[in-house]
């Protein structure tokens, strides 16, 4: 009876936790509730089955929990998407191992149990290898190899899937050995499905794989006969699907085009990354931080457009300092946040929050777009695709239809960028060639630092302090 009420309490807490995570005000408490729920579930289970094998449990706790805690506390906020992918992959691996272990138990499994083992192995393996590939691509350890973009990849994946099904049938017919090829083939299938997806779409894939790991957990629940595990797995699986859908909507992409369409702008990007002249921009004006500082000093309204490049350069703190200096000078400063700025929806909000940027200065795309025409200076920092005017004008562009920040409407635009290399999606950006645009080449942090210096040397900070004390 005690065990049952603990389990029910745990399910309730999980449900409230998941619900609360979707609202800013309750999110942190909700996260704690969900963690508490899992702790409760563990207590309930141990009450039921006793502490047999506790040294093994301690071993798993010390190694897995320890490594997880260290990574979670140390990892930089910039690498959040790949961290989530890694955690997720390990959840899938766990379900896979449980299923393989359960087959070797002396108690024979009934048909439901056997099917669940198969689902658990298949989905768990796909989640594991898919998540690792996603992580590798986000870390830029892995690119998008040219061969993965040929149409034949669908044939390869279908072949792999069919082979997996054959193995499943063999297992059901009593050949437990077929679990080994099933595991290998499913791992390959996970790679085959994830490798062709472009880096810009990766967050959607991670969200989907997150949903899969819920499914794998539910399947493991069937294997060991735990209702709690089935409910929790099903809940996460379904919620993950919804979140995937929400994210696709925010990026104006359909799930099928993310999964099967291949990398965005892949045709132009397989030549490799980084080389500046490849895109052959013709009308680009570049300028020095001095010129940029002079224009800023004379401005009344300034909008910053931060992107992932800002985060990579760890420049969010310098940006905040610059914003404060400009505000002291009486300039209105705001930040335009594209829904998918950074590498994951909401990622930029997390990064700027880390630098203590006040919440009310972060303005979402739909609210700030009408303000660009009356903005004197826009500074784009390491953002690219989210400010590409082609998304509005060129139906042939792979970006076409994606909502973008309309910075091309502003009077002056400075684009701070390391080189003229193409964006994450590998697409040419017309903004760079507009007459009101100047490129400031350099690392975002260094450019911001020299802007700060220049502004101070023309007395921006001092004037403000002087006039402040005069009032």
């Amino acid at each position, binding site marked *: 009876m005690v065990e049952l009420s603990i389990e029910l309490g745990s399910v309730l807490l999980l449900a409230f936790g998941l619900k609360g995570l979707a609202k*800013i005000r309750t999110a942190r408490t909700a996260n704690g509730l969900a963690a508490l729920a899992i702790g409760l579930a563990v207590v309930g289970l141990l009450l039921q089955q006793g502490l047999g094998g506790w040294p*093994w449990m301690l071993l798993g706790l010390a190694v897995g929990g320890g490594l997880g805690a260290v990574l*979670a506390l140390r990892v930089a906020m910039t690498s959040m998407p790949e961290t989530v992918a890694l955690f997720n992959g390990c*959840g899938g691996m766990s379900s896979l191992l449980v299923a393989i272990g359960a087959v070797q138990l002396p108690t024979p499994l009934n048909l439901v149990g056997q099917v669940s083992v198969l689902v658990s192995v298949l989905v768990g393996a796909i989640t594991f290898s898919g998540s690792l590939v996603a992580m590798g691509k986000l870390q830029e350890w892995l690119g998008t190899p040219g061969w993965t973009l040929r149409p034949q990849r669908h044939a390869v994946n279908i072949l792999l899937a069919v082979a997996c099904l054959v193995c499943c049938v063999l297992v059901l017919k009593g050949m437990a050995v077929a679990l080994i090829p099933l595991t290998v083939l499913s791992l390959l299938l996970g790679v085959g499905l994830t490798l062709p997806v472009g880096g810009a779409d990766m967050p959607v894939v991670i969200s989907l794989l997150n949903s899969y*790991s819920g499914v794998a957990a539910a399947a493991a629940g069937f294997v060991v006969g735990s209702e709690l595990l089935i409910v929790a797995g099903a809940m996460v699986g379904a919620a*993950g699907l919804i979140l995937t859908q929400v994210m696709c909507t925010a990026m104006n992409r359909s799930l099928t085009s993310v999964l099967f369409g291949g990398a965005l702008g892949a045709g132009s990007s397989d030549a490799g990354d980084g080389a500046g002249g490849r895109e052959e921009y013709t009308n680009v004006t570049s300028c020095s931080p001095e010129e940029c500082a002079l224009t800023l000093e004379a401005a009344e309204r300034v909008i910053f457009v931060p992107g992932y490049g800002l985060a990579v350069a760890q420049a969010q703190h310098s940006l905040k300092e610059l914003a404060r200096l400009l505000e002291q000078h009486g300039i209105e400063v705001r930040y335009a946040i594209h829904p998918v700025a950074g590498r994951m929806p*909401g990622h930029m909000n997390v990064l700027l929050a880390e630098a203590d940027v006040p919440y009310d200065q972060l303005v979402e795309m739909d609210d700030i777009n009408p303000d660009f025409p009356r903005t004197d200076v826009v500074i784009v920092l390491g953002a690219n695709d989210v400010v590409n005017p082609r998304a509005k004008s060129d139906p042939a562009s792979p970006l076409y239809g994606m909502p973008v920040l309309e910075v091309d409407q502003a009077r002056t635009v400075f684009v701070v960028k390391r080189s003229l290399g193409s964006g994450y999606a590998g697409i040419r950006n017309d903004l760079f060639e507009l007459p009101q645009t100047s490129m400031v080449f350099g690392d975002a942090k260094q450019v911001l630092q020299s802007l700060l210096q220049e502004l101070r040397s023309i007395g921006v900070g001092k004037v403000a302090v002087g006039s402040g004390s005069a009032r």
Partner: protein
Amino acid sequence: MSVPLSGTSALWVLVLGSLLGLELIGKVPPTLHTPLMSGANAISGITLLAALALIGEAPTPALKLIGAVALGFALFNVVGGFLVTDRMLAMFRRREAN
């Protein structure tokens, strides 16, 4: 693990759990997409229950070891996932206080 589930009642649990999950997440502000994904991901590490059950039932050390490794992977997911989510959300809270 002691009481085997009947196939049908387990399926009911599956269906109702899925429906619950669909209902729980409705409108999510873009700000929260990353933390929500991370939090949901941590919850999916609940498969650690299955790993614990496997350790409990396993008759041989080899099988217990598989269970322990599975438990390790799951706990990596759970502990890491919740902590990292908390780190992200703590920043939002501080910002609200300003």
